[in-house]
């Protein structure tokens, strides 16, 4: 009952402390006077009446103190007193305060930024019921690369699995949503009817899909996201039952999902969902690769592990494989079914980088704490006398520890605030890069959870760097410190050991970071030196966004893109333009052909299993990208739809499949009825998917020659098209003209995106570049902090030993001898630190191996160079104080004492 009133009364006292004190005094005085009046009435004279009253009540000051105590204000008053004292002390030592705050702000700021990133990625809030039970189910090939599963496969998993609670499936489809407000591009998903119940989320308006709505002819219903409802449907409460158009077909709205609901969760566009209609193709057995495929998501029962599910489904899958046609069996035999927590699949690519960065910021924080602990130790020593005086005046041991701990707490909280500012700044600067790289839906800002973590972290910091020095300082015998007076007392031997150990640890930890940084820099360097095999300057890539439903039966290659290319070539500043279906260094869509062919004469030919990337390209592509032919020629203007179909392969293809070099004579690829493409050339290799991957065998067809009736038209020209443009002028001038031309020739193409090839190359190195930049930052900071620690400690030790050194000098010691002695001491710490750092770097090499290219995780060159750099910096940092010490004037130093 009284907790609330207690809080209220404390609050009142805290807010009006001075009036509280004043009231208390008035009240006590009134009492004294009333009592004295009564006593005088009984015949006592005024003076003795007042004395008597004072005597019985006790002194006003003591009364006030007891009243305060009965309110439980004593600890609070102590704390406020401590705070005042701390601020006074900190103001008196500005250099110390600023150093500590800067170091802490760096250490805590890096962590705060990292917490925010982790909170938004690894620990991300997902708008589903118990999201940790959701798993993505997919086929993984021997490299672990995922692919989607056939509808029939998913059905079998669903039927035969005992370890899964439920399975749903979905696939993105083209989405142009037509409402009264007009047409808008949305992210549309074709989903199983049970998707929303598997996710455990129901619409806020209307209902979710019915099983029967997946039946052919019933699937014209749609559920819209809250955002679509709010913007495109004008938040219409009566929207259920109304008609909208998706890709120009009518659909009836049956549901609106709750606010913030998103599925898939890494999608930025407004979403709509329609039932996956079961066509005859779904129901017949799988005969070829055109069978419908989906992504599957399942819910685990409570406590089940994803790996058991994966093992079970892989078992089911292995019994299914024999039923597939031979060409599908090939790939399926080397695949397994993987179940990965849905949350993890959202950040799959960046997860290792994030985990590595967590380790990095944790190390930085440790370095910062070790450094500050050292500073505090040094400071504690300098303040020994002051602490001893307080002890002598009656402050208890615990009281002194508490006071010193308050000081570290204040420092770390101030540091945390500064760190939060730094983190905020860093996140704002890197926001764009990070959001793009990590595929985040929103902006990165520290939220309540992050602030909480930060608070805990700063208290933890205070404990780590504050408590030990405080305890040591308070322990020192009062008697000793007072008697020996100044800081010259020789009591700090053990403390020196501790301080040296901390410098050694700092040096070691920094070395680990610096070596990682060095390895990543080598990686970036190696990546930059890899010959790309093509030119990147003055090349623009346009990705045309064409509403496909409008052009379902149109030969877009000839009807849309060829005229567009014609128009683009005429733009001022344009040199050349060509169509291509593969964007170099882009991890997007690729069509991989898997087939068995016979090479050479039918009689002698050996069946050959081929895996190759397919591409269609215009003849101008060679001029635009500037790649070289190893043999033969590339396409030219004479390769028209009416001439003999031709193809070129790359060197990797020729080497893998046709080592005898008879590729151009003996190999042809059937395009369709009586049309076979002859190989007319071999291109030099270039990196197709990323710089750190070798070239993959590739077959190119001449785009102008391909007809919609050709077998390869569908998987390549319909799947992904890019327009490559070589310009003569600056991109800034050219891009607006290009956009206008695109919109002019076909308004449906307005949403097309334009990128420069240079940008694409940079992006393909993205994860390494980002990691390298961040590590450069962290490594440099760690080095600076560690050096500051070393410098600070030596300066301090030298100042402590001034008298000793003076005496030595006075007794005839050589100045150079003193210099060497001090440098030796520093050298021992540096070497010990370097040894520890090298050992740790050696064992942690495995952690960053995944980010490296062209350099081994234990690369001796990098390790030696970085260690040498660190030692050099360390020697410089220690030389300065050592030189100062060796120049001490013994007379003056001794006199000053």
């Amino acid at each position: 009952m009284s907790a609330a009133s207690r809080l209220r009364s404390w609050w009142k006292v805290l807010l009006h402390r001075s009036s509280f004190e004043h009231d208390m005094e008035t009240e006590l005085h009134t009492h004294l006077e009333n009592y004295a009046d009564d006593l005088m009435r009984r015949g006592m004279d005024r003076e003795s009446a007042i004395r008597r009253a004072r005597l019985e009540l006790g002194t006003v000051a003591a009364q006030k103190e007891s009243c305060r105590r009965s309110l439980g204000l004593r600890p609070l008053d102590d704390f406020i007193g401590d705070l005042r004292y701390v601020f006074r002390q900190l103001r008196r030592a500005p250099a110390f305060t600023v150093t500590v705050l800067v170091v802490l702000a760096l250490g805590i700021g890096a962590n705060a930024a990292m917490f925010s990133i982790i909170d938004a990625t690894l620990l991300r809030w997902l708008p589903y019921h118990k999201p940790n039970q959701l798993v993505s189910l997919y086929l993984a090939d021997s490299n672990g690369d995922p692919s989607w599963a056939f509808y029939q496969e998913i059905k079998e998993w669903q039927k035969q699995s005992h370890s899964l609670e439920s399975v749903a499936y979905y696939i993105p489809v083209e989405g142009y949503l037509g409402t009264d407000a007009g047409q808008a591009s949305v992210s549309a998903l074709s989903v199983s009817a049970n998707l929303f119940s598997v996710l455990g989320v129901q619409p806020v308006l209307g209902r979710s899909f019915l099983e029967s709505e997946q039946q052919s002819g019933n699937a014209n219903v749609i559920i819209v996201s809250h955002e679509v409802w709010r913007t495109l449907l004008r938040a219409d409460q009566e929207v259920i039952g109304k008609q909208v158009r998706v890709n120009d077909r009518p659909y009836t709205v049956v549901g609106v999902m709750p606010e913030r609901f998103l599925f898939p969760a890494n999608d930025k566009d407004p979403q709509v969902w329609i039932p996956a209609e079961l066509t005859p193709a779904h129901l017949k057995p799988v005969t070829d690769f055109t069978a419908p495929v989906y992504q599957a998501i399942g819910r685990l029962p409570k406590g089940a592990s994803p790996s058991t599910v994966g093992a079970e489904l892989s078992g089911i899958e292995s019994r299914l494989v024999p039923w597939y046609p031979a060409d599908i069996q090939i790939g399926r035999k080397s695949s397994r079914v993987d179940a990965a927590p849905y949350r993890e699949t959202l950040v799959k690519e960046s997860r290792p980088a994030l985990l590595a960065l967590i380790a990095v910021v944790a190390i930085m924080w440790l370095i910062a704490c070790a450094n500050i602990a050292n500073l505090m130790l040094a400071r504690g020593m300098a303040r020994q006398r002051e602490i001893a005086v307080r002890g002598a005046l009656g402050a208890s041991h615990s009281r002194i520890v508490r006071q010193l701990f308050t000081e570290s707490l204040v420092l770390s909280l101030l540091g945390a605030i500064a760190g939060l500012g730094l983190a905020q700044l860093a996140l704002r600067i890197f926001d764009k890069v990070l959001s793009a790289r990590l595929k985040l839906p929103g902006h990165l800002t520290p939220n309540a959870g992050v602030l909480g973590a930060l608070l805990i972290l700063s208290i933890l910091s205070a404990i780590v760097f504050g408590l030990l020095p405080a305890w040591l300082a308070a322990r020192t015998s009062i008697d000793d410190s007072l008697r020996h007076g100044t800081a010259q007392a020789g009591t700090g031997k053990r403390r020196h050991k501790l301080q040296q150990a901390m410098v050694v640890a700092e040096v070691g930890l920094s070395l680990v970071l610096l070596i990682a940084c060095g390895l990543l820099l080598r990686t970036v360097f190696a990546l930059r030196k890899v010959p790309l095999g093509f030119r990147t300057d003055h090349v623009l890539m346009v990705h045309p966004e064409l509403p496909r439903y409008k052009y379902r039966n149109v030969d877009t290659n000839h009807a849309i893109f060829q005229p567009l290319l014609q128009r683009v070539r005429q733009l001022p500043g344009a040199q050349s333009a060509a169509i291509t279906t593969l964007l170099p260094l882009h991890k997007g869509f690729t069509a991989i052909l898997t087939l068995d062919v016979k090479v050479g004469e039918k009689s002698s030919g050996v069946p050959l299993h081929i895996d190759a990337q397919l591409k269609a390209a215009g003849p101008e592509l060679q001029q635009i990208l500037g790649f070289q032919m190893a043999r033969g020629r590339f396409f030219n203007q004479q390769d028209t739809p009416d001439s003999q179909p031709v193809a070129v392969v790359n060197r990797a293809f020729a080497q893998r499949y046709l080592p005898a070099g008879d590729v151009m004579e003996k190999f042809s690829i059937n395009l369709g009825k009586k049309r076979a493409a002859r190989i007319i050339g071999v291109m030099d290799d270039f990196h197709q998917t990323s710089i750190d991957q070798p070239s993959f065998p590739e077959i190119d067809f001449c785009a102008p020659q391909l007809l919609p009736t050709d077998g390869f038209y569908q998987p390549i020209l319909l799947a992904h098209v890019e327009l490559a443009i070589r310009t003569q002028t600056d991109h800034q001038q050219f891009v607006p003209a290009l956009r206008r031309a695109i919109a002019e020739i076909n308004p449906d193409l307005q949403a097309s995106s334009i990128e420069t090839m240079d940008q694409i190359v940079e992006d393909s190195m993205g994860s390494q570049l980002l990691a390298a930049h961040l590590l450069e930052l962290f490594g440099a900071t760690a080095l600076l902090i560690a050096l500051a620690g070393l410098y600070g400690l030596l300066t301090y030790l030298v100042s402590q030993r001034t008298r000793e050194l003076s005496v030595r000098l006075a007794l005839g010691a050589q100045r150079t001898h003193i210099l060497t002695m001090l440098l030796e001491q520093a050298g021992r710490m540096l070497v010990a630190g370097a040894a520890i750092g090298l050992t740790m770097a050696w064992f942690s090499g495995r952690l960053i191996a995944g980010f490296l290219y062209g350099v081994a995780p234990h690369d001796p060159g990098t390790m030696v160079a970085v260690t040498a750099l660190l030692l050099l910096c360390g020697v410089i940092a220690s030389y300065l104080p050592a030189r100062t010490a060796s120049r001490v004037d013994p007379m003056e130093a001794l006199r000053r004492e």
Partner: protein
Amino acid sequence: MGKQLELLQGTLDVLILKAVSLGPLHGYGVLLRIQQISGDQLEIQQGSLYPALYRLEHQGLIASEWGESENNRKARFYRLTPAGRKKLKAETDNWNRMAQVMAGILNREPEEA
């Protein structure tokens, strides 16, 4: 007037509650009221009065406001809050039962044992 009794440990709080239950009083008034009701048989240490008042107010059992004392001095007047009234009743019942039990035990004659 006989020799004054020393206050039993922990009874000051309930006496204060009782005193202010009869009407708002300032600190000195509480002292006088208790002495008056007890027929001057209780001796109260003045020094423990104010800490007790602050404690009770802190616990929300009494509330105070400023006013003028009978001789025109600025004084803080205490009154019972509903929570305090409840507490007073509980303490009174408690005390009566205790007194009964104590009396029963202490009045027992040897042969009855």
